[in-house]
């Protein structure tokens, strides 16, 4: 009977993920068809199917160009970055054993942004060096994120346990420092600095092009898969680092792997679309509240829900003030901040 139960558990996990995948497809289709230049839904499908050689109906060339050249890379980028933020948030929360951890709150995003800005100011935009920029910028951002997450982790850890108060304080300190340094660096940069600052602090998917997609796919997709492979170890870590060691987990090695992969995912995301807050916090929580804490579901679920949420937020950002665009960080913060307050409130209640 237990075998059957276990079997149904795996089945229900797969079904949940399938459901998320279905919702993601719907959001992506909506996102492709809606916007300042509206493409009717039948045409959207027709253009997509035309790509794989199936004729469904007629459409204008202009529609196809908007959909394939402007919206498609943007949607793919939102999927990768949103999914990446979701899964990195879930992995970091699991590693810190703390539900308040989020790439934005503990300074990973700001650190990445700082290093990205430094890179952009230091490396001149000479055309012969363009190839360095496509790969160098995300990698530089990754290093910044890694430094920050390692610093916060070392600061907040005592005897293998992380203390929530120190963790948040360390995050605040690192965030403030990195944000100030970004301001300083941008001050010495050229006249587009003000515009860039909004980009780095609130995020913008508008710069997504096909050229950025392969790099993102490699540097976000691959580490995300590596994170997925650590879900059982994350389950063990949830009991504590010592307990995980007792059960045969090489804790040090797993922690290093988790830190590097999460920093890579977040850093590359930040270098591509700027800092987008709260996705990494809200998404893993929703999954845990709805489906439990097993990381074998939390990690892939967070990726899918993060992708859904960021595409949805981007859709709102594009249609709410047509023909202009709202910075996407405004939308995610508007959704995420109240959730965060509710979370703190509930944590306090459960302690009393």
């Amino acid at each position: 009977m237990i075998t059957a139960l276990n079997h149904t558990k795996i089945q229900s996990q797969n079904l949940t993920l399938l459901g998320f995948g279905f919702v993601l497809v719907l959001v992506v289709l909506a996102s492709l068809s809606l916007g300042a230049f509206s493409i009717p839904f039948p045409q959207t499908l027709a253009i997509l199917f035309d790509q794989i050689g199936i004729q469904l109906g007629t459409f204008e060339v202009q529609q196809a160009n908007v959909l394939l050249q402007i919206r498609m890379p943007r949607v793919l980028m939102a999927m990768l970055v949103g999914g990446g933020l979701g899964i990195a948030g879930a992995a970091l929360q699991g590693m810190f054993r703390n539900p308040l951890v989020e790439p934005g709150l503990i300074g990973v995003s700001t650190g990445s942004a700082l290093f990205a800005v430094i890179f952009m100011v230091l490396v001149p935009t000479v055309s012969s060096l363009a190839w360095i920029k496509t790969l160098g910028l995300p990698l530089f951002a990754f290093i910044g994120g890694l430094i920050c997450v390692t610093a916060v982790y070392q600061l907040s850890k005592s005897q293998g346990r992380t203390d929530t108060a120190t963790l948040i304080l360390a995050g605040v300190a690192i965030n403030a420092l990195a944000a100030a340094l970004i301001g300083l660096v941008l001050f010495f940069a050229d006249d587009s600095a003000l515009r860039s600052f909004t980009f780095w602090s609130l995020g913008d998917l508008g710069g997504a092009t096909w050229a950025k997609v392969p790099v993102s796919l490699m540097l976000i997709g691959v580490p995300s898969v590596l994170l997925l492979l650590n879900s059982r170890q994350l389950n063990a870590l949830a009991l504590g680092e010592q307990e995980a060691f007792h059960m045969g987990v090489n804790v040090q090695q797993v922690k290093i792997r988790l830190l590097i992969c999460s920093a890579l995912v977040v850093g590359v995301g930040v270098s591509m679309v700027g800092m987008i807050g709260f996705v990494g916090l809200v998404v893993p929580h929703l999954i845990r509240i709805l489906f439990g804490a097993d990381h074998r579901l939390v990690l892939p679920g967070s990726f899918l829900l993060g992708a859904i949420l960021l595409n949805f937020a981007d859709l709102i950002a594009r249609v709410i003030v047509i023909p202009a665009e709202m910075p996407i960080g405004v939308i995610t913060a508007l959704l995420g901040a109240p959730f965060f307050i509710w979370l703190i409130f509930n944590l306090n209640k459960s302690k009393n």
Partner: protein
Amino acid sequence: MLQASQVHFCIRQRPIVDEVSLELNPGEILAVLGPNGAGKSTFFKILSGEIKCKHGAVGYNGHDIHKLKARDLAAVRAVMPQHTQVNFPFTVQEVAELGLISTKVMQPAKLIQEVLEATNTSHLKDQVFNHLSGGEKQRVQLARVLVQIWETKPFPRYLLLDEPTSSLDIAQQHAVLKILQTLKSRNIGILVILHELNLAAQYADKIALLKNGMIAKAGTVKEVLEEEILEYVFDHPIQLIQNPVTGGLLISATAQAQVQTSIPTFKQA
């Protein structure tokens, strides 16, 4: 055999564990007793591999503990720490399953069911761990630890428990120690830190008394349980009485004279 030889551990030049040597054979229960601050838990952590011991050696079945990888170590020993916090809403079943993380067994589902029944927790298996009472949590943690070494293996293994009965009622305390007794026949050696002397007297094969980081006395239950040595170790008057029903030893601790006099003076103040 689990062997500790001349294990020494200092914090700021002060020895917490002082040249302790101890042996644990498969098939026996060794109870480690001692007052608070005697160094029991530190010694326990050195044995489990949590704390690296720089002086002295710990060996599992003849292999030095530092040469064993976490995974290999987990195959020969399971550890139940004093407290384990779970910060996420895992169910009891999921917590118990974690015991299998580094081993492959033939029928995992059947094994977990067996262990949950043995620890009297199978009725809780779908509940969220954090919603359980202290005693229930402790039994679930015991289940997780037992899952790790439940399947019989051709080599001797060891189970280390740090106060596994601290939040249990008297019936559950005895239930836990009875489970430990059944493990002896599976070629498992058990080291358990206890505070309840009577439990140790009733279930242990051997007892080690720890005081100020040193072994005050170690040996069979009969050898160790003497009024004089117990009074020295715990700084408290202790009487040994024969149980009129079973004929076993009963340890009775009368109130200390100092404590009685200190209460009135406290009231006057």
